[in-house]
């Protein structure tokens, strides 16, 4: 199957109802199973270990689909691909971070950090810019 067809099919499956269920014989690490059971029983993080596992699996698949769709979009529309500075500004804006009001400072921080750490995340850029601002104050 082509990647776009796979994305389409996964999307359709994620959109289907959750009423139909299947038993599985998935092998997972015993410690992970026990940790999940404990989290459900003592912390109330989900109604059951199955619900916890299902929610985590759904969230992961949704993230995978989103990134695959974005990557495909960037291939088709190169100008739509945001740079690290754009992403740092967006991350600050989403969080309501005070540096969102200083996009040029964030873009400068992105330029600085990307030279030394090519895999830096937008959140790391915001943190770096905040540290620089704090040091300069």
């Amino acid at each position, binding site marked *: 199957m082509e990647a776009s067809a796979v*994305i*389409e099919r996964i*999307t359709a499956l*994620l959109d289907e109802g959750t009423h139909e269920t299947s038993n599985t014989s998935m092998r997972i690490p015993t410690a992970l199973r026990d940790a999940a059971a404990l989290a459900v029983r003592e912390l109330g993080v989900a109604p059951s270990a199955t619900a916890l596992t299902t929610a*985590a699996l759904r*969230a*992961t698949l*949704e*993230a*995978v*689909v*989103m*990134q695959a*769709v*974005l990557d495909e*979009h960037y291939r088709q*529309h190169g*100008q*739509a*691909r*945001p740079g690290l500075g*754009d*992403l740092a*500004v*967006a*991350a600050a*804006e*989403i*969080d*309501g971070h005070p540096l*969102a009001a200083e996009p040029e400072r964030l873009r400068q921080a992105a330029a600085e950090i990307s030279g030394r750490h090519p895999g830096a*995340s*937008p959140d790391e850029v915001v943190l770096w810019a905040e540290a620089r601002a704090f040091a300069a104050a």
Partner: protein
Amino acid sequence: MSRLVVLDNEAVQALRDPAHSKHRRVVSHVQVVASRKRRAEAIGIVVPTAVRVEAGWDRTSPAWVFPNRLRIADSPLDTPSANTAAAIRARTGVSVADAHVGAVMRSAPDAQITVITSDPGDMRQLAGDADVTIVTI
């Protein structure tokens, strides 16, 4: 605590059209959400269904394939939302779509809300007492 990113009409329009002047800006926000979801952060994007109507976003239309695939959930205009939106509209005279955005902002007291909008003044007014982050595009 989870975060909910809410799109208004222009954010939706910008997301759909790669030629829109704000396309990359809105894509940046979606990319940040996708990256955070991949890190298992509790974050999602929603579109109030009245905004979808105003924007002409038909989920069955091929013209909307890119936004359709991005796991952007509908926030439906159900009975409680309609009541809140009606009260907002009666008091402020805003559009039905904006009133629905206001209802969404007020409907999730346990979530941190970020609204991506081209009309920050209206949104601030519609948020009421809700602690909402407004991102202006």
